[in-house]
């Protein structure tokens, strides 16, 4: 091997191995990175993982819990003396049972009749409206177009009552504050 070739190899190698650290790493303004013991790092990692897992579990637990329905929950206070609350058993006579059954049948029949009348009315009024719209279409297509547009302003329709007694004239409601006791969830 000639000396020259050796020298050339050295030059190339030294160039390839020449290394300069990034200047910013050794900046005086940067905090020096502490060397952490890998054991400690592992522990920390494990701890962090555990904590996250716990949080996720908590969140899942709460997310699955539905709002309580007051009517369905047991009133503990009243359930304590439930034995006292039972009424003395009433012997229901056969006549009474019959009367109740007959009355219920009559009632359901009357509701059914009302439902039938309602259905009849709906069918009738739809047919009547269709006829009116057809007439209108023949007379004036423009008016027809405006008539078949939806009327979003009419909805929602909120109707209160009717009550059992009429409103009292000149009634002055007593003063008071409105307190909303609805619970938030």
């Amino acid at each position, binding site marked *: 091997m000639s000396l020259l070739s050796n020298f050339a190899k050295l030059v190339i190698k030294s160039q390839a191995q020449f290394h300069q650290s990034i200047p910013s790493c050794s900046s005086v303004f940067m905090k020096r990175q502490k060397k952490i013991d890998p054991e400690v790092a592992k522990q920390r990692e494990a701890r962090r993982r555990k904590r996250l897992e716990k949080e996720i579990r908590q969140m899942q637990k709460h997310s699955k819990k539905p709002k309580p329905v007051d009517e369905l929950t047991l009133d503990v206070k*009243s359930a304590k*003396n*439930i034995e*006292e*609350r*039972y*009424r003395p058993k*009433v012997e*229901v006579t056969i006549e009474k049972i019959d*009367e*109740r059954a007959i*009355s*219920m049948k*009559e*009632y359901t029949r*009357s509701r059914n009749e009302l439902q039938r009348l309602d259905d009849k*009315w709906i069918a*009738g*009024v739809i047919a*009547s*409206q269709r*006829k*009116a*719209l057809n*007439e*209108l279409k*023949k*007379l*004036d*297509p423009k*008016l027809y177009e*405006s*008539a*078949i*547009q*939806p*009327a979003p302003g*009419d909805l929602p*329709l909120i*109707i*209160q*009552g*009717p*009550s*059992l*007694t*009429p*409103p*009292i*004239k000149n*009634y002055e409601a007593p003063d008071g504050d409105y307190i909303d006791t609805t619970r938030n969830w």
Partner: protein
Amino acid sequence: MHLSSRFLGAQAAQKWDIIASVVLSRPPVIAPKMLEIEKRYQKLQLEEESENSLMNNYELKTKQDQKMLARREQLLKEGKELSELDEEIGVTNAVREDEWNKKAEELQKRYNFSKIAEETDPKSLSRLLDRKLVLIVKQNFGEKKYSSPWILPQMKNKEGETLRQTAERCIGEIAGGDLSASISGNAPFSVFSHKYPKPITQKTGQIGAKIFFYTANLAQNTTDFEANKDDVADFRWVTREEFWSTVPGKEYRNASKFAFLE
């Protein structure tokens, strides 16, 4: 084909007057009385329900009160000290009920809930509170102020106006003062064709009028209604039966019958 049908349409529009009519109603203010069937069913159901129910705190207190009072009676007979027991009894439910009854009586006297003043004036809105009432009018038409028979208030459609707007204008014009009422829907629910007598047809070239009906409800708690005296000669608030016996023309009544759902 297309052209001819459009031509026919234009011709038809010329020959018929388009009129919007409003069935303005006052919904029932109080619930109607229960039917015999309903009353009986309610009574029996309540009975059954109370049989199967548990006692509430108030009833338990009443029971407790009775026991305590019996003991007091006994102690009184034996001539023993009562003050301690009296303290324990406190206010009994019987005493409370007396108080409540007194208060209820006072209110009853002041406001007279049970006695609903019978109003007989057909112009009044406080007549027949448990029924649906509908406004019918004797409307003035034309320059001669020809007064119509009893009809539902109506108005001729103006150029460039939708039918619903005509109906709204109709309500506005027959009412004397401010009136808040809401029309339901853009589409009329029924139509009635009315042919003019021959002399009018010859004079105006119009065969007759097509009346399109809309329904409208008075705003809740409307207590007064005044008609516009220029346009309305007379007015009435009527029930379905009264409508049937007052308004002439069977076809006309039939066309508007669907507005009378109760």
